[in-house]
């Protein structure tokens, strides 16, 4: 660890009704990976937004390279060498890799862009990072992981000195995470100051040098990663210890009826001949790598995307689901992995979001029955312990975990019998995660049938009664929780389709 490059001292920021940052201190040294942890709503993102000039601070000082600075917009911060690699990638899919990296500052001769020089520059960057990406490739053809590496290359090309990673591994597979870590370690060795925001405890232990913890807008403390345990960090974050233990056996009652049966579902390239059954009170985990076709399967089942074929039976009766409306009427609900785009209406309040799927039941004559609506909303706010000043609060003012609870409330109000949770805890802090797990278990116990898509192995092993594994649009296996292990799931999730086919042929012969 080198000298201190960035110090934030006494940073204070108040939004109407929320003291988002309460005199927070934070520092980054050259050549360190500094984790910034805290539950959602603890103020991590706000702090980083203050740093990069997206928000203006109310008070406090930022010292960068020995000078007091104040950035008014992300551009100024970037010019000074502070760059964020966002969780949601900001890439233009139809442009090439090099075009993306040099957007807005292309090497030019007069009016013309010097493509060759740009590509060569990009190649140099990738060589520096030991990454193998063709700068001429179209961005949308790359995997999420590779796109992220392009973001990193872009950050470095800005002559960054401090790089902030905001949940960089959320959409990556385990091998991709390893590759990312190699790059981060390399950057550290080169003397970059790195801020690493993540909820994944294992990663923090693996990659970071120091951990700073925030809670409710306050700075709690900084630990040397090597000298502390997971439990220490979690305790600082939430003030209580959480144990994560895998389920040992299925909780589904003997002879529970099959609620949902899907046969030979086909939808585009990503869903090929998928069949499975879901029983009452069961949590059926869908495991696989990112891009295995799990979300696509859920969306096709829910009628959100068109399907080419396949039969769906609910309680043994064949149903025709062509749109989300049909699915909701058949008692299916879908909680998307991308809450902000597909789950909630950010600009509207909790009431409006909670009754969105069931508004027809909250009318009196031609009018919306507002008292009834408010009562139902309040009931689920209390039940789910949604943290909010009031039910008329706009959803965009809530933290990620609480937004997720609003989405869950929407489907509970609807009383769906089959619930599809797609990455239910993505971007959600440890405390809220725990609550959502408990809630899912309660729902299953009360007789709901749940499909849970998750890319987190611990989540799959902890929650599922049975596990379906997918790879490249096909179902490659099904495991009972009693026999499931990480290794078995991983083998199925990475099973090469051709190999599988040839094996099937051998078996046939």
């Amino acid at each position, binding site marked *: 660890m080198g000298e201190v490059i960035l110090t934030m001292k006494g940073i204070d920021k108040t939004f109407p009704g929320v003291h988002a940052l309460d005199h927070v201190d934070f520092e980054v040294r050259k050549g360190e990976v500094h984790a910034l942890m805290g539950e959602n709503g603890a103020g991590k993102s706000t702090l980083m937004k203050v740093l990069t000039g997206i928000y203006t601070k109310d008070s406090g000082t930022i010292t960068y390279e020995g000078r007091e600075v104040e950035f008014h917009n992300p551009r100024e911060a970037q010019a000074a060498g502070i760059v964020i690699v966002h969780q949601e990638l900001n890439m233009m899919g139809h442009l090439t890799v090099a075009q993306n990296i040099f957007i807005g500052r292309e090497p030019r001769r007069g009016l013309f862009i010097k493509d060759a020089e740009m590509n060569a520059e990009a190649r140099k960057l990738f060589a520096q990072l030991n990454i193998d990406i063709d700068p001429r490739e179209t961005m949308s053809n790359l995997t999420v992981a590779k796109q992220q590496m392009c973001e990193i290359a872009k950050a470095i090309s800005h002559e960054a000195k401090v790089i902030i990673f905001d949940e960089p591994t959320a959409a990556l597979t385990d091998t991709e995470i390893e590759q990312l870590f190699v790059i981060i370690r390399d950057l550290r060795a080169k003397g970059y100051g790195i801020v690493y925001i993540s909820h994944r405890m294992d990663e923090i232990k693996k990659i970071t040098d120091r951990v700073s913890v925030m809670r409710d807008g306050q700075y709690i403390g900084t630990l040397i990663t090597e000298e502390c345990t997971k439990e220490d960090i979690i305790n600082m974050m939430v003030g209580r210890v959480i144990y994560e233990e895998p389920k040992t056996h299925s909780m589904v009652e003997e002879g529970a009826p099959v609620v949902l049966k899907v046969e030979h579902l086909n939808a585009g390239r990503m869903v090929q001949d998928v069949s499975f059954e879901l029983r009452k009170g069961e949590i059926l985990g869908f495991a696989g790598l990112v891009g295995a076709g799990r979300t696509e399967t859920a969306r096709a089942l829910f009628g959100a995307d068109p399907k080419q074929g396949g039969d769906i039976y609910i309680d043994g009766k064949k149903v025709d689901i062509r749109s*989300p409306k049909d699915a909701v009427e058949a008692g299916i609900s879908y909680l998307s992995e991308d809450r902000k785009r597909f789950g909630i209406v950010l600009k509207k309040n909790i009431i409006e979001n909670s009754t969105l799927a069931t508004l027809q039941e909250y009318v009196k004559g031609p009018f919306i029955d507002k008292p009834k609506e408010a009562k139902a909303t309040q009931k689920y706010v209390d039940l789910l312990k949604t943290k909010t000043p009031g039910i008329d609060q706009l959803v965009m003012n809530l933290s990620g975990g609480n937004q997720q609870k609003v989405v869950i409330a929407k489907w509970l109000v609807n009383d769906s019998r089959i619930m599809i949770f797609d990455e239910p805890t993505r971007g959600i802090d440890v405390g809220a995660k725990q609550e959502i797990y408990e809630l899912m278990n309660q729902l299953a116990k009360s007789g709901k049938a749940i499909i849970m898509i998750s890319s987190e192995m611990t989540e799959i092993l902890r929650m599922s009664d049975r596990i379906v594994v997918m790879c490249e649009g096909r179902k490659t296996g099904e495991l009972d929780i009693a026999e499931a292990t990480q290794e078995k799931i991983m083998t199925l999730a990475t099973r090469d389709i051709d190999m599988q086919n040839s094996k099937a042929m051998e078996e046939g012969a």
Partner: protein
Amino acid sequence: MKKALEKFKSLKLVRIMGFNRVVLIGVIILLCLLFQVLSAVLNHGNVFLTYARFSSAMNYGYFIGFLALGVTFVIATGGIDFSIGPVMFCAALVSGYCFNNYSFPMWVALTMCPLIGALFGSVGGFFVAYLHLPSFITSLALMQIAKGVGSIFTKTQNVSWPGSADPGGWYRSLSNLTVGSVNIPTGLIILIVLAIILSIVLNKTRAGRYMICLGANREAVRLSGVDTRRWEMLAYVICGALAGFAAIFYVGCYTTVQPVKGDTFNNEAIAACVMGGTSMAGGLASILGTVIGAFIIAIMQEGILSMGFNIAFQYSLTALILLGAVIADVTSRRRKN
């Protein structure tokens, strides 16, 4: 100062109307005073605040108001409609022509207006909601179709609706009713009643809730099991019907309609709407704001005439106001984010 502002904001009337709307009413008063002074200075001591100007501004405000109320629904869903002005003219041309040449009774001609508008609205709404065409392009195409239909039907002739004293001239009392020596602004009464009804539709019915929510996040509403196409199309039908309805008040004011015209009113109606606090990004709408916005536009028009400027100034000025309103909308959204 800050304290006084907070106190003002917490007054009951201000809370009900919304702070921005109160500011807009202040803008109206300021504009009147400004025009009073500028008219005198620039136009040889001309007086702006006269009864004639006032009633002329009101008349202008009625049909702009109906147009703007309609387009508020479309903008709330995140769309835009550039066909309303020509649709209004088309309705006035076709129904007026039927009254003059095929001796349709006046009440039939008047009923035809909103129906013609609704027909255009449903065509546009179908293309946008069911075939997913951009509303911008769809409404531009529809604007030309409306102009074409209107002029083909009338053989490219002006259509003159009857004067107050002519048979069938009673329709003008929908805009202004004179009983003895008392003038009753019936147009204003109808506008206010309709605004109240539309406000209830927007804020207290399922249709309004869905339209606003889908303007804010269409995919989330669709994935909640709502048939978004139906509700989105409804917004365009309402918009078209109101554009047709506006025709009644346009002819009530001017009696004569020209073919292949009407597009200048698009900007004015949209500007009124955005000024009133309806967000171009969708998901946010204010009926009261739209009504006030419409009268600001009407006062600007009178002000320009009163200052002795050519009416062509109005076009540029409206465009500038529209830009200004959109800038205010965008920056306030950015601040919130």
